């Protein structure tokens, strides 16, 4: 009896419950629907929820617990002899003698790694894939595989029976309670409220979980590398030796070059995006005829929807060579991964973001202010410069801060177009690297999960998170405060 079938049953019972609840409500009302406390659909939903929810919770708990419990039972069913036969074939000599000693002392014999290996073998066998299992151990663990299959079968049937009983029980109980004075609407609404609360809690807890893991892993990193070195060190080269006896770099974790690289690229991006975005917003909201506005706004929004990876190859394949050739023409040698190329393309990416936010705040300036200014004989541009922009300024600043935070966190474009070398420079023609690029390049490939190199990712992530958080909070505050003024 598969779990899918069980869930199907559950849905079916809920649907039946809805129909039965509804029908019964209509019946007990005796044709006078108005005597019911709630409309019949609420009685239906009430029964359906009670038929579905408790059983659903049961299914979820069972899914979470099934694996570990069955594994434990299966391993428990193995005799020491069977384990020994398996171990003699599968384990290297050192581990084997340790295991045999353990078996002799009748202590918990298997280490965690060996346990996993044994379970994989049993699982393969149980799934009928004996070809993945060493033929010499099949005999020893076949009973365990059979045991596993029967346990699974049993568990599924038990679940099916339990769900059927719980669901039908909930259905029957609530169905029998239906009478005109049952406050079905209030009950249903309370349950729905709790469901909504649950969902939002999940979102919040996920965020909190991510932040906490960032924090704790960063703390682990800072036990290996001092905070001051990380924050103020001028040299970044995260290659640490993998084995203690290896020659080579010990690693340097001064993140300043990354911060300056990030800021350099973000600054270039803003130098492109701020004026272009703001001017296009001004044009769109103040000058453009309706038709142009209707055409240009969607195009800008499409620009916002272009996947960043596309901007990325636009940067490496088009902009970077172009800039390099331009430099060559005037005798400058420009790195083909210059900060300039990455920054310009990132700026283009942010333009629609800036312009749509700025457009919003400019449109929020009341028309009456424009009329007042025009009525005094101001020209359109005087009105914009002296009334509209000053009134919209806080909102515009907020929009810019949001854009900066976007630029700092942007990954794909810089991964493709910026370099990997952590140069400490403010020259836009050289190659720099950013925080996001380093995070990505450190995590790509196989990593040891407690080396300083890997852990440094969490510290970088934490810094990135804090900076963008502060920027966003400040920006939203400013935008909000300004909104209040006119509403």
């Amino acid at each position, binding site marked *: 009896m598969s779990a899918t079938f069980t869930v199907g049953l559950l849905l079916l019972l809920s649907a039946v419950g809805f129909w039965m609840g509804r029908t019964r409500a209509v019946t007990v009302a005796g044709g006078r629907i108005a005597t019911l406390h709630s409309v019949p659909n609420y009685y239906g939903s009430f029964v359906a929820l009670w038929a579905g929810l408790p059983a659903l919770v049961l299914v979820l708990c069972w899914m979470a617990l099934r694996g570990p419990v069955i594994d434990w039972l299966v391993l428990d069913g193995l005799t020491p002899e069977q384990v020994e036969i398996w171990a003699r074939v599968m384990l290297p000599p050192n581990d084997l003698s340790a295991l045999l000693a353990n078996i002799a002392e009748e202590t918990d014999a298997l280490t965690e790694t060996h346990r996993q290996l044994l379970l994989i073998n049993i699982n393969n066998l149980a799934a009928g894939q004996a070809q993945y299992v060493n033929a010499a151990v099949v005999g020893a663990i076949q009973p365990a595989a059979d045991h596993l299959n029967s346990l699974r079968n049993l568990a599924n049937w038990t679940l099916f029976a339990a769900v059927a009983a719980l669901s039908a029980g909930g259905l029957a109980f609530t169905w029998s309670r239906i009478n005109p004075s049952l406050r079905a609407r209030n009950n249903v609404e309370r349950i729905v409220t709790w469901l909504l609360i649950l969902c939002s809690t999940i979102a919040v807890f996920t965020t909190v979980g991510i932040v906490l893991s960032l924090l704790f892993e960063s703390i682990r990193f800072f036990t290996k590398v001092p905070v001051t070195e990380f924050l103020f060190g001028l040299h970044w080269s995260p290659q640490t030796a993998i084995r203690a006896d290896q020659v080579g770099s010990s690693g340097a974790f001064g993140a300043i070059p990354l911060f300056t690289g990030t800021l350099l690229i973000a600054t270039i991006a803003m130098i492109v995006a701020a004026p272009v975005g703001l001017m296009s917003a001004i044009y769109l909201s103040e000058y453009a*005829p*309706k038709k142009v506005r209707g055409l240009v706004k969607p195009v800008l929004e499409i620009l916002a929807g272009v996947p960043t990876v596309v901007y990325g190859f636009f940067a490496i394949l088009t902009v970077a060579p172009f800039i390099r050739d331009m430099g060559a023409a005037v005798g400058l040698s420009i790195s083909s991964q210059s900060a300039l190329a990455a920054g310009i393309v990132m700026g283009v990416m942010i333009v629609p973001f800036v312009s749509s936010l700025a457009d919003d705040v400019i449109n929020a300036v*009341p028309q*009456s*202010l*424009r*009329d*007042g*200014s*025009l*009525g*005094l*004989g*101001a*020209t359109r541009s*005087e009105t914009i410069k*002296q*009334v509209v922009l*000053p*009134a919209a300024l806080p909102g515009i600043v907020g929009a810019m801060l949001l854009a900066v935070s976007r630029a700092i966190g942007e990954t794909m474009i810089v991964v493709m177009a910026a370099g990997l070398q952590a140069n400490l420079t403010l020259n836009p023609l050289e190659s720099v690297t950013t925080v996001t690029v380093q995070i990505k390049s450190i995590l790509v490939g196989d990593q040891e999960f407690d080396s300083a190199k890997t852990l440094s990712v969490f510290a970088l992530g934490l810094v990135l998170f804090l900076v963008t958080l502060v920027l966003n909070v400040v920006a939203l505050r400013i935008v909000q405060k300004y909104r209040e*003024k006119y509403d």
Partner: protein
Amino acid sequence: MMDTTTMTMPTETTATQPVKMSAKTVKVFYGEKRALHGVNVDIYQNEVLAMIGPSGCGKSTFLRTLNRMNDTIDICRVEGQILLDGEDIYDPRLDVVQLRARVGMVFQKPNPFPKSIYENVIYGPKLHGLATRKDEFDAIVEQSLKRAGLWNEVKDRLHEPGTGLSGGQQQRLCIARAVAVSPEVILMDEPCSALDPIATAHIEELIDELRESFTIAIVTHNMQQAARVSQRTAFFHLGDLVEVGPTEEIFTNPRDERTQGYITGRYG
């Protein structure tokens, strides 16, 4: 409603005044829709002309043609002639900026700029280069605020934001702002509709004083107000100017039955 013995008095004063503005068969279209069907009216120098009529009849539309504020509406088109001192203000050679400096406007909702009181008042003069030195600006601010009857209330806080004033004070600030440019005509679109009776009375008094130096056209829904502040009244109905004449006459002895219906409250 009106004392009939004073009936002829304002007629005499206005009749001797020269014509300041004159509308000749003015038609206004919003897209395909015609909002005014050919309005003819003269506005005399130093008079207050009140415009009344049911909602949607085109009063604001007409008022806005007088300083070309309709230009800001894309779909709006004006036909006919409007003369200011005999010059057509829709003549393409005429500079709309200069026109608006001569014909100022006060709006229904007080709309001070989010700047200080002082800056609100000098906004127009600065644009038009009416003054350059600080003491000149100071003088303009003081004089304009005095004329708008606001000076005593705000003279100690000229550098606080204009948006921090009460509604009535804000509206007087807007009047001061319009006056500061020394326009010849001031247009007011329901200037008191957002104000309480005391602030309204204040502004009505003010309008009466301003008449000495300016020509005023005012839209109002309040017929007592029209009777109190204006010398002549124009009644609009469904895009037509039904009749215009001395205020007393309109209110006591209207010629058209639509006017009569409106002022006696049969519709509106």
